[in-house]
Every structure is written in structure tokens, then in C-alpha cells.
């Protein structure tokens, strides 16, 4: 097919779970790209509005409901922000438990993403569902790893989705040491499953498209930053404190999206596993660095499709890091702590890394101790702009060499690479030629 005959009108309705509902729209006429739009059509829920009037202790519990998949991260970012507003500092024990809690969700989310997205491509299946009969061993391994990660979250937080044990100052009910020991043993026994996962991902044919962009993540002097740190830019090689996060996100609105967009030092920036691995590679556990090498991930990496690989690297990092943290807890035991608190006025800021990238929360409380202002900036809304920029850069490069089906598939895969939801198996495209 000659380039100048390529008139595509691709309109993908409710394409993927980008925190819900999104559409892709691509129009090309006679080989020229006329329009590339990523439309976010999710209905508003107004968390930043209706949280007003709530008490400090209620905020993390309620705003965890922003996302079922990142509920632990939302709870933790909100807990840190509320504690900052209330002048609360927490014990090393609480920090350690929160890091374990957070990494349990990384394991769960990344495992889901790799298996529900990458594996169907690998075996040429339209989704994970048909694999249950055609590749039962792959599906069973995915479910085994996912169950282990879920059980880890439940042991730490009381349940998998919207856990209730974490609160201001510490734990309402401390995790059970015997259960942590069981999770440690199961994690050790899961090494063959993890190795098999790496082997599968190594066989994936990753599209080779690069676009240099700004990578933004937390950075911490002592560790691979997932729970704490300052906000680091790959462009400036400098970090700003979390309380200045608005310097970073610079949110703005566009008519075709109910999600706000972000930009910092250039038109857009990327957050997530690839941003973290790019910015903090040296602090990954050696086992994870080895996996990066095995899978051909060299930093800095400007190929957004490699985010899938970066997630596998983080699975290995979180697994080994969790084993070390579990040893610390099992050796030192856990002490009950006073978690009582009388609300005061104040404003506070909190950030954590969640599987999809850096997450910011901010709250203010009035003199009666009730919430008067709230703001939350989620990773996916920071990435949307960058994804659309990638599409605008890649569609003209891909157009001369690809059929409409290939082009559509590559756009699907680009979205999947950014969004580690199970749902992102975007195999439901409705592609039409205008001509």
C-alpha cells in the first residue's frame, strides 16, 4: 500500500482503564496525520470537593476509594499528607510496615499487568480468558503469584482492597508475625515462578520506538525510592521537596479530557516504572539490576514500550526487598503503639510511588479539625499528556510501514505499556477507514 493512500479514521471507544474510561482517536488523510487525541471520558467523582468536612482520621480511609488497584498507595499518600498537616511523626516500625504494605501492592499490580497484558500478546491470544484452556500453566502461575501478592497485602492491611488496618500514627491492628512468616516462606518458594516470568518476558518482541522525555519520580539518598523522597527530574537532575509538588505538575485542562494534564520542564513528562528505573537504577537491588541486564533494559531508556520490562525489574526488586524487610520484622518483633490523635488545624503534603508512578496528596484542616481543602494528583493523569505526545511522535513514523491493524495494535500496546491495569488488554478496537 502506498503511503499517500493511507486515510485512517481510528476511533476507539472506552479503550482502556486509564483510571476508567478513555477513547483513542486517530485520523490520517492521504498519508498525513491530521488528528491524534486521547480522550478521557471518565465521570467525575469529586473527591477533592466532597472530602471537605471530614476528620483527619477519615481522609485516608475514604480517599483510598479513588482507585481499587492503587488503594494502598492512595491510603499511604493521604496518610502522610494528613500526618504532615497534623504535625505527626511516626516510628521507624510504622515506616517499615508501610514500606512492606506499599511493596505488596507493587507486586500485585505488576504481576497482574505483566500477565494480563504481555502474555496474551506473547501467545497471540485476544485476551487472558481463552488462555485458561489453551495455556492453563501460564494462567495458573499468574494466579499463584497474584494470590501470593494479595495475601501479602491482606496480612499487612487487613484485606486486599480498601484495607482498614493502616491509619494515622500507625496500625489499628498490627500484622500477625506468624502470617508474615508464612508469606516469607511462600515468597521464597515463588522464585521459580518469578524466573519463569522473566523467561516469558524475555521472549516478547518489544516495539523499538524512542522518544526522549522527562522522567519524574521520587528520589531518596539511601534507598530505591518507593515510599519516601523528593521529587526528581531527569531533565534537571535535581529534586524539589514534596510540598512544592505544584511546581512539578503545573496542571491544566483540555476539553477532550475529564482528567487534568501535567507538564514540567517540557511539553510533557513520564512517571511510572520506567521513570523510576531510569532515575534510580543504582539503588535497585543487585538481583533486579541483573534482571534488567538479562531483559536488555539499559538506562537511560527512552522507549515507552520498555515500561513492561521495568515492571518485571521492580517485581524482582520488591520481592527481594520485601524478604529483607520481613526478616527485620521477624527478628525484632512488633510493638503496639498509641494511635490516638486530637485533630488540629494545618496543611500537609504527601507523596509515594505507586505502581503507575508518583502520587501526590494535599489536605488542609480548619480550626475545628475538619477538612477545608484537598488535592490529589494521580500518576495516570500525569502520564496522559506524555502518552498523547508519544502517539503524535510515533504515528507518523509507523504510518509508512504499517497496516491499520498494525498501527492500531501498536497504539494499544503503547497504552498498555503505561497502564498496569489488568483491564488494559485493549483488544476491543473498532477500527474504520474513512476511505
Amino acid at each position, binding site marked *: 500500500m502506498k503511503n499517500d493512500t493511507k486515510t485512517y479514521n481510528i476511533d476507539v471507544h472506552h479503550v482502556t482503564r486509564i483510571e476508567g474510561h478513555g477513547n483513542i482517536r486517530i485520523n490520517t488523510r492521504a498519508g498525513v496525520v491530521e488528528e491524534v487525541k486521547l480522550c478521557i471520558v471518565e465521570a*467525575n467523582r469529586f473527591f477533592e470537593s466532597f472530602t471537605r468536612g471530614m476528620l483527619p482520621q477519615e481522609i485516608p480511609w475514604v480517599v483510598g*476509594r479513588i482507585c481499587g488497584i492503587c488503594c494502598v498507595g492512595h491510603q499511604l499518600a493521604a496518610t502522610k499528607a494528613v500526618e504532615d498537616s497534623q504535625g505527626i511523626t511516626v516510628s521507624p516500625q510504622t515506616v517499615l510496615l508501610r514500606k512492606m504494605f506499599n511493596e505488596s501492592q507493587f507486586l500485585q499490580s505488576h504481576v497482574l499487568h505483566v500477565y494480563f497484558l504481555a502474555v496474551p500478546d506473547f501467545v497471540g491470544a485476544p485476551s487472558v*480468558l481463552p488462555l485458561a484452556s489453551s495455556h492453563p500453566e501460564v494462567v495458573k502461575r499468574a494466579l499463584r503469584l497474584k*494470590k501470593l501478592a494479595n495475601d501479602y497485602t491482606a496480612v499487612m492491611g487487613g484485606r*486486599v482492597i*480498601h484495607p482498614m488496618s493502616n491509619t494515622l500514627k500507625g496500625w489499628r491492628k498490627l500484622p500477625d508475625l506468624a502470617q508474615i512468616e508464612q508469606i516469607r516462606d511462600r515468597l521464597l518458594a515463588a522464585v521459580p515462578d518469578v524466573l519463569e516470568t522473566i523467561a516469558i518476558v524475555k521472549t516478547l518482541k518489544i516495539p523499538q520506538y524512542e522518544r526522549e522525555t522527562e522522567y519524574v519520580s521520587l528520589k531518596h539518598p539511601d534507598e530505591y525510592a518507593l515510599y519516601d523522597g523528593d521529587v526528581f527530574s531527569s531533565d534537571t537532575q535535581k529534586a524539589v521537596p514534596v510540598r512544592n509538588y505544584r511546581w512539578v505538575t503545573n496542571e491544566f485542562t483540555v476539553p477532550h479530557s475529564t482528567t*487534568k494534564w501535567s507538564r514540567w520542564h517540557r511539553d510533557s513528562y513520564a512517571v511510572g516504572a520506567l521513570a523510576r528505573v531510569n532515575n534510580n537504577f543504582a539503588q535497585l537491588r543487585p538481583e533486579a539490576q541483573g534482571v534488567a541486564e538479562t531483559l536488555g533494559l539499559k538506562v537511560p531508556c527512552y522507549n515507552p514500550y520498555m515500561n513492561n520490562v521495568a515492571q518485571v525489574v521492580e517485581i524482582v526488586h520488591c520481592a527481594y526487598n520485601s524478604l529483607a524487610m520481613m526478616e527485620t520484622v521477624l527478628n525484632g518483633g512488633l510493638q503496639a503503639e498509641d494511635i490516638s490523635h486530637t485533630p488540629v488545624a494545618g496543611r500537609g503534603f504527601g507523596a509515594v510511588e505507586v505502581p503507575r508512578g508518583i502520587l501526590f496528596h494535599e489536605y488542609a484542616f480548619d480550626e475545628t479539625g475538619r477538612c477545608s481543602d484537598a488535592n490529589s494528583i494521580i500518576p495516570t493523569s500525569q502520564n496522559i499528556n506524555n502518552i498523547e505526545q508519544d502517539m503524535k511522535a510515533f504515528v507518523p513514523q509507523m504510518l509508512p510501514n504499517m497496516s491499520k491493524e498494525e498501527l492500531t495494535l501498536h497504539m494499544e500496546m503503547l497504552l498498555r505499556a503505561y497502564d498496569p491495569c489488568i483491564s488494559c488488554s485493549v483488544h476491543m478496537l473498532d477500527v474504520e477507514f474513512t476511505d
Partner: protein
Amino acid sequence: MKPKVAFFDFAGCEGCQLAVLNCEDVLLDILGLVDIVEFREAISETAPRFDVAFIEGSIHREEDVERLRGIRARSTYLVALGACACIGNVQARSNFIAPAENFKRVYGEVDRNQAQTDPEFWPLWAHTRVRAVKEIVPVDFELRGCPMVPAEFVHLVKALVSGSIPHFPANAVCVECKANENECAFDRGETCMGQITYGGCGAICVTNGYRCDGCRGVLPHANLAAHRQLLREKGLSDALIQNRYRLFCSAEPLGQEIRR
């Protein structure tokens, strides 16, 4: 022929669909018993009819209302999946604020006005109010809670697959809490909604050291006046009682009461 099952999501965190996938031990068995014909994450939305449609999320805009009515018309059974679909969940608290004010608080006045200028995308911004599914179409079964309880989901699927009607006893959370031999939240100096809230969760929040905030909705014959009086006696002002009732139950009659 295996029953055709479909999942649809509206406004919510999608955690209840995730909770379905978290039934790892029985997921493959369930896939052997039913045909999942619509599940946005996995397959295209093309099936003409469903035996069972699961609805996740609350309903906010006219386009969502139309979509929901279309699903109801094509479904034998319709199940509200989780607190957003059953009772509007936490976001129904935004109903006490005008939509334009909600948009202003989230986007800022200038950005709100700029974003709402392109007629092609107006339907996206046409928020009316947060409604439970039953406010729009008849609901056959409710899987309550935030998130829904996997055991109840499995019970419902088993019953429908075997041609019987699933039964969910209307006990209070308080009953299950006693069965767990928990120390009462009131005795810990907390206040709790377990007396007036639908059970079925096993009182999981109180069991893990928290209280019940009523995410499963209010029991039809609960003594609400007595509960309000109890909270007053524990020192909660009417403003704080209203705040509490409006954490998860804003779209319930309890949350809509205005007391002076």
C-alpha cells in the same frame, strides 16, 4: 448452554471487578461454568443479550443513564456490584454541593470554564448527581460493600448457575461482630454503625481494629432514632453525626436527613 455473564463499569474505583479477579482459587472453576461475554478489560462489547449483568459504579450523567437502561433491557438478571452501584458510596456526598461548585473545587474556576467550551465534548461534563443503580432501573440482586465480598459473589454465581435464587440474610454487622467475639467499638471509646448496617462482611473492619462506617448500606428496619441518640450520648455533635452518616450513606435516606 452456559449462562452468559457480563460486567459493566460506571463511576467507581473498579475495585469490585478486581475483587472478582481476586477469587483466584475458584476463578478457573467459574470460567468453566459461565461464558463471560462482556468484560471491558478483556473482550469487546458486542453481546446482544446477557443472562446476568453485573453493574459496577454509580450513575452520574445522562449518557450513563442511557447506557444502563440499554443493559437492563438486554439482561435477564441485573446485579448491583459493590457499594457504588448499591448505594452511591462515598462520592454521593458530592450531591450536597452544586455540580458547578464541585467542578470549580476540582478544576478551578478558570480551567473549569475553559474546559467546558467545546460542544463536542459537553456530554463528558454533563454531571447531574450521583445515583445508585436502583434509582434508574430495577435491580434483582445486590452485592453490597466497599469492596464487595468475594464469598457473596461466589454464592450468587453458584445459585444462579444452578437455577436457584441467591439469599443474603438481612443481619446487622453487629451480629457478625458478636460472633467474632470482638471487643465492641463503643467499649474502645469509638462510635460505630454496625447496629444499623447490612451484614455479610463478617464485620471485617471492626475485627481489624477499626469501626463500621456503614459501607454496606442501612438495614430497612433499623432503629435510626435510637442510633442517633446513642451517638449523641457518646458526645458526637449533630454536625459530626451528619458527617459520619455521609461518609458512605449519603444517597441513603439516613444520609439525606437534615437535622437542626
